[in-house]
């Protein structure tokens, strides 16, 4: 019944050289993505969540071949694309698209919305030149813009409308997979919902796979079938969204869910929020990267190698703790934060 995965990342690492050190002697690298394995099936929406610097955007870009992969392999629809042939990369570009965080920054200020969409159609030769205009209005309608919006430049469109143009550009490619990188973070709350609904409707209509990168867990819970939680370049937990939210296995996932402010005046802030900040990805702590902030950390967490991945059907997490150790979360009851201490 399950179709084979559309996109597979196998043990993918992405490193960047860092300025500094003695030239020619010490080469410092920042490992933004560190041995990540992830699969996306056709029509599936996968959420990538984590704090800033966790490598979620870099991973999204690496999957689309926008960032060179240092180690591991990315394959799309059965063909290897990282370090693969030019033809494989061309095919990836024709069948995937990306939607960016800053809706204004992603558009050319001199092109009208219709021109911006037409540009994509022409570059990819999606339709004959004579049909470009018709296809443009079809795409603008699909993302909920009126024809008159097509004649406007980004400066005279609102943030939400610009984001719709960005989505229309992504859809112009007729992609099988869209990577959306924090695509609602810059929008007002009342507009965020409109864009999220648009993504949900498009998924239904077009059998689209979606990698949705966000730090807003509430949106991911609503939109995504599965969620992968990243911390300092690694996926620390992955599984079906509802299971991860109601029964998190990794203490970091639990802390992240607990820290979401909910509109419930009876649910106070966690009494003891997670201490400290995420460490710099340039100085990764040995062992489990989360151990300096983890309330459950033991001596074996501090030494290399990092804890082995635990698995259950459909789920995996990298922690020494077994199921049921991290307290399950209830969303409505007042928190007694003591639950988490073993």
């Amino acid at each position, binding site marked *: 019944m399950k179709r084979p995965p559309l996109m597979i990342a196998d043990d993918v690492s992405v490193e960047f050289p860092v300025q500094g050190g003695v030239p020619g002697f010490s080469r410092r690298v920042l490992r933004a993505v560190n041995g990540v394995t992830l699969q996306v099936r056709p029509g599936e929406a996968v959420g990538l969540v984590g704090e800033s610097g966790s490598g979620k955007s870099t991973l999204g870009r690496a999957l689309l071949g926008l960032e060179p992969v240092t180690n591991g392999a990315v394959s799309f629809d059965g063909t290897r694309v990282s370090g693969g042939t030019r033809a494989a990369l061309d095919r990836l570009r024709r069948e995937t698209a990306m939607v960016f965080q800053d809706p204004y920054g992603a558009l050319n200020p001199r092109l009208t919305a219709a021109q911006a969409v037409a540009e994509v159609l022409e570059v990819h030769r999606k339709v004959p030149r004579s049909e470009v205009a018709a296809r443009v209005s079809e795409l603008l309608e699909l993302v909920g813009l009126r024809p008159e919006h097509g004649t406007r430049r980004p400066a005279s469109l609102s943030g939400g409308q610009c984001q719709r143009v960005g989505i229309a550009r992504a859809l112009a490619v007729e992609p099988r997979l869209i990577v959306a990188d924090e695509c609602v973070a810059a929008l*007002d*709350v009342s507009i965020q919902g409109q864009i999220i609904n648009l993504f949900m409707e498009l998924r239904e209509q077009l059998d689209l796979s979606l990698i949705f990168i966000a*730090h807003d867990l509430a949106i991911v819970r609503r939109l995504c079938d599965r969620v992968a939680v990243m911390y300092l370049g690694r996926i620390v937990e992955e599984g079906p969204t509802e299971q991860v939210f109601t029964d998190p296995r990794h203490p970091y996932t639990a802390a992240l869910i607990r820290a979401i*402010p909910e*509109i419930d*005046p009876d649910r106070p802030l966690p009494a003891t929020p997670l201490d400290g900040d995420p460490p710099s990805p340039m100085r990764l702590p040995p062992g489990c990267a989360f151990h300096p902030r983890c309330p459950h950390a033991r001596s074996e967490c501090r030494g290399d190698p990092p804890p082995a991945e635990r698995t259950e059907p459909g789920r995996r997490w990298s922690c020494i703790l077994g199921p049921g150790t991290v307290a399950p979360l209830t969303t409505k009851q007042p928190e007694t934060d003591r639950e988490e201490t073993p």
Partner: protein
Amino acid sequence: MTAPVLTVDGLTVETTEGQRIVDGLSFDLAPGEILGLVGESGSGKTVACRALMRLLPPRAMSITAGTVTLGADELTGLSDAQMRKVRGRRIGMIFQNPTAHLDPVMRIGDQIAEGVRLHEGVSRRAARARAVEALRQVGIPDPEARVDSYAHEFSGGMRQRAMIAVALACDPEVLIADEPTTALDVTVQAQILRLLMELRDRKGLSIILITHDLGVVAQTCDSIAVLYGGRLCERGPKREILGRPAHRYTEGLIRCQPTTAAGTGLLDTIPGQPPTLGDMPEGCRFHPRCPAATALCRATRPGTQPHGPGHVAACHHPATLKEPA
């Protein structure tokens, strides 16, 4: 009922072209109260607070009506020299982006001490001791050493703590926090919000928290004021506003939150776009997006009506009031 620390009455800010960015805003702030000022971008929440501090860009916009009363003083009538004695000493302010608001080439301790020396004329040594104390209060570990650090040596959460230390060094009565956690990660956001609440409990500080995140408001504030298109929609105690919203905009805003609770259907949304400054609708500014709008809403600006204890709203057709469960 204690007297409010800060009273804002009919505050109006206009650009030089006569566009009203803030239109007749009124609210009170009690001692030790945390007021959440909620609204979308362009709703005037930041401009309103900058107007309280008299920090509006000169020659671009100015206060054209209304009063701001802090204790016994009316701030809009003060001279610039008198206002400088209020700013930083009686009202502190922190911003969204600590990196942009801390001086990158000045030691953190000196930035805290600068205000203390200026306002209180204490010695260099005493000011430094105050800086160490201020850093300790905001939970920076090892403040004696950190007082000589530069901003770039701090992480994002620590910079926000340092900025709070700068703002609180002179023990102000009111702290204005403009989106203080928007640039931070959720786990660090929880730490900073907790710190603000602790400071309120410890020092009786009153806080105006500007935010677009109703979740943040629900967890930290005592009362809420909702702004839309430069006007106050609704104001009242947190439980009243979140539990029994009267204004249709507040109601819609609460409904369209993608709460973490399970649910797979489409989200509720408010159709349309927030109004822009050059194109403010007549009558009630929310009417083009409002499900209950009538001819009255299109023509006449609604006045503020009481809706419960301490709860007022400016709506011609308030949402059906449910009895509190």
